């Protein structure tokens, strides 16, 4: 292991590392725009410059290989002066329209300006005007004036998503990032990662455009339920202290956006576009009323009815949800008497046009916790056309089950979170909470367990499935 010296301090670097990597790994901060741990070195932003001791000039750290005995300075006067000049040049043609930019508050350019420059522009000349609101794809809008041409997005589509959708056209200070003309970016299921990669406000999400200022938002760590990969994500929602009262209060419990949560064990720094659109899955109309054969009843009564059906059934079948957390599945297995046949049910099937699977993240199984469900209940619902005729009770947990498969004489207990026609057909219907309202863990297809935290309080009239199963096991009131 080569030993290098950063600001005079000895640091053990790894062979093949760059000075930038070695510095970051050892707690020395060197600023960077174009460098990214998962992408190739471009070396074009020049902000990561450092000075090798004894040399009068500065060099970029991202392309400087470590060598035994190398001595670099990250905060010499020459380095400070040079960073300042780079920030002057970066902002030379940048519109500095932070007031109306979605990136403001989490913008690298903004942060570095205050940290490394702080001075107004030296230029008296007009800025180079360029395209605003260029529709790069159906999901992404590009502001070329804000773009600093770091080429991260271009490299992402070449090296990670492999759609080769982006390139740079023109040259000099009129260079533009542009999508290929046959629009492969629309077909790239990972395209929105370039929004996170963009160190400035050039690439913006159309669904999130002008929806919220990020400093009013708070990220809650969560797990994407979109497929068996179980990518760790951050669900962004309003901070409780910035609660909206006068405006639509429903905005307080809304998913504003979803971004990846860097996790080398599962997804790295990426997620797919389906993960960004979790709101489309999780914010469908909710079922909030317990029912007996379609008639509204009190939650406690519904629970009592369900409990009695479970106790009295002789040949019952239960369908376990692959969207249940590890905790819920365990509680489910403990709550049910031994005479229950438990089948693992696939709650969610691939949608038309959805990418089935690929080498990067997307898995064909579109449920988050199939691995844990199968471990507890190895018997699969898949492949069985109809349930046995002598079944007298079917307990369905979660959506995605065709009620036509249930024998006519069997009673139905149904636990579901969303407003669906089947809810009224069940003998007993109990509304349950969704992922953003509870704490739990999912086990992905590789056996990696990831935790999710609650973002919002659950509606008062729904019940956590885990509490429900615990109550069945101990015959307590679910409201208690």
């Amino acid at each position, binding site marked *: 292991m080569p030993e290098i010296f950063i600001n005079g301090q000895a640091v053990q670097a790894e062979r093949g590392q760059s000075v930038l990597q070695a510095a970051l790994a050892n707690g020395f901060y060197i600023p960077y725009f174009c460098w990214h741990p998962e992408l190739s*070195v*471009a*070396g*074009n*932003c*020049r*902000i990561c*410059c450092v000075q090798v001791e004894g040399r009068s*000039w*500065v060099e*970029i750290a991202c*392309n400087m*290989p470590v060598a035994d005995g190398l001595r670099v300075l990250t905060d010499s006067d020459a380095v400070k002066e*040079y960073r300042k*000049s*780079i920030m002057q*040049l*970066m902002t*030379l*043609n940048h519109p500095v329209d932070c007031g109306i930019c979605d990136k403001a508050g989490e913008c690298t350019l903004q942060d570095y300006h205050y940290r490394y420059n702080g001075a107004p522009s*030296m*230029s*008296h*000349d*007009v800025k*180079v005007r360029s395209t605003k609101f260029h529709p790069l794809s159906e999901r992404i809008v590009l502001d070329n004036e804000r773009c*600093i*041409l770091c080429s991260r997005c271009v490299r992402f589509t070449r090296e990670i998503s492999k759609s080769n959708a982006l*390139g*740079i056209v*023109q*040259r*000099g*200070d*009129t*260079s533009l990032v542009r999508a290929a003309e046959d629009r492969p970016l629309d077909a790239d299921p990972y395209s929105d990662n370039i929004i996170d990669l963009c160190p400035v406000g050039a690439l913006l999400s159309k669904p999130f455009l002008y929806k919220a200022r990020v400093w009013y938002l708070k990220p809650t760590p969560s797990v994407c339920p979109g497929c068996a990969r179980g990518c760790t994500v951050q669900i962004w929602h309003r901070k409780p202290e910035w609660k909206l009262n006068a405006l639509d209060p429903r905005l307080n419990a809304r998913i504003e956006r979803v971004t990846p949560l860097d996790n080398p064990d599962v997804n790295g720094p990426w997620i797919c576009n389906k993960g960004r659109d979790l709101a489309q899955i999780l914010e469908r109309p909710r079922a909030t009323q317990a029912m007996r054969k379609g008639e509204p009843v009190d939650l406690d009564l519904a629970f009592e009815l369900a409990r009695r059906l479970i106790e009295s059934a002789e040949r019952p079948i239960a369908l376990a949800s692959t969207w249940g957390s590890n905790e819920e599945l365990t509680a489910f297995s403990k709550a049910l008497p031994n005479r229950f046949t438990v089948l693992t049910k696939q709650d969610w099937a691939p949608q038309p046009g959805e990418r089935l699977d690929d080498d990067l993240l997307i898995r064909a199984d579109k449920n988050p916790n199939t691995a844990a469900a199968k471990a507890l209940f190895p018997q699969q619902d898949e492949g069985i056309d109809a349930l046995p005729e002598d079944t007298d009770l079917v307990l369905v947990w979660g959506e995605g089950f065709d009620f036509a498969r249930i024998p006519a004489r069997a009673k139905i207990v149904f636990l579901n979170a969303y407003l669906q026609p089947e809810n009224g057909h069940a003998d007993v219907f109990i509304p349950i909470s969704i992922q953003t309202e509870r704490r739990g863990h999912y086990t992905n297809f590789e056996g990696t367990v990831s935790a999710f935290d609650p973002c919002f309080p659950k509606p008062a009239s729904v019940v956590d499935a885990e509490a429900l199963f615990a109550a069945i096991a101990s015959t307590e009131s679910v409201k208690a």
Partner: protein
Amino acid sequence: MANAKLLMTFPVTATSHTLAEYRARGGYAALEKALKQMTPQQVIAEVTTSGIQGRGGAAFPMGRKWGVIHPSDGQPHYLCANADEGEPGTFKDRWILEYAPHLLLESMLIASYALQVRHAFVYIRGEFDGPYRRLAAALEEAYDAGYFGERVLDTDFACDLVIYRGAGSYVCGEASALITSIEGKRGYPRNRPPRLTVRGLYQKPTVINNVETLSNIAWIVNNGGEAFKQVGHAKDPGTRLISISGHVERPGVYEIEIGHPFAKFIHEDCGGVLGGRALKGVIPGGISTKVLTGKEIEPLTLDNPSLASAGSSMGSGGMIVLAEGTCMVRLLQVLLRFYHHESCGQCTPCREGMGWLHRVIDRIVGGEGRAEDIARMYQISAWNDGTTICGMGDAAGYATSGILNKFRDEFEYFIEHKRSRFNGTLECLRSS
């Protein structure tokens, strides 16, 4: 050996570029000698002994560049002749491409043999249409005569050559941008390390030499590296093609022995300044070298050590003569317009700095200059000094600071009076 000629050894006629006449002049004898009497190591040794330096601008010793390649390391190597002669004022390679294409081809064959190159390339600038056709015709002749392809001259040596036409970008004359362009990508220069001689074209060791540098190899093989060393300057041997233009009586391409007196070259060989005016200055080697005043050049000789002592260099051999009466502000405007237009836009200092410099000089010429503009131009030049992937930013900085250093008073006059001290044009018409 006064005024030795190594390249311009024959009178140019309508047919002097053909294979038949080239052979009649003793052409392809060096190839025969190299293939049949020398090992690749011996060829490399001769080139290293000759001490020849690159003629493209950086003056890097050719032997040192070649020395990095291990001919027998088992991987493919590539050789590329840089015929993307884009430096304003430079048109010397064009002479070789048009009038002595076989000299280049023979030299490239010898170089390919020395470096064990199976596929060689010529990257020729897109604007060179005539030179391209000459070279392509010569290549066809050479293929027909069996100098290219399998079993060259009945030996085991095989070599193919591809002529790749650029699309007219200045930056693609930079070696790494050039190979990126050959690979079919956008012509962006690449970061070093790795050096191109380690990982170049298609990620394999690649040697890129200027057309003129390569064309000397045939002579070196024929006459030996020691003989080459006797020509020209002790530290910078050989001859150079100088393309001279601007306010000069006889512009054109001249071959001079390195170390030739500068003033004699302009005033005698080239017939002096146009219209008999006084010599205001000379840009000695393409616009990226620092300008020299008429007074400065008098004690100088045309070689890198001498010009370096005056803060400039031989560059790419594209000399531009400036007569008294030339407005340096307008000249710098022209230069900066070029650099702004040609910046590839990869690195921040050059991408933003070139545009900024161009806007500042445009403003000065437009009569809206500010007192601090001169300091600002120095500063932007300094920000580009050695801080970008390739040398284009540096070059623009040298050109700018070179002109500002020596003609600062003209800029101050322009800013103060909102007009040029001269008539505001670069033209210096012959007084009839």
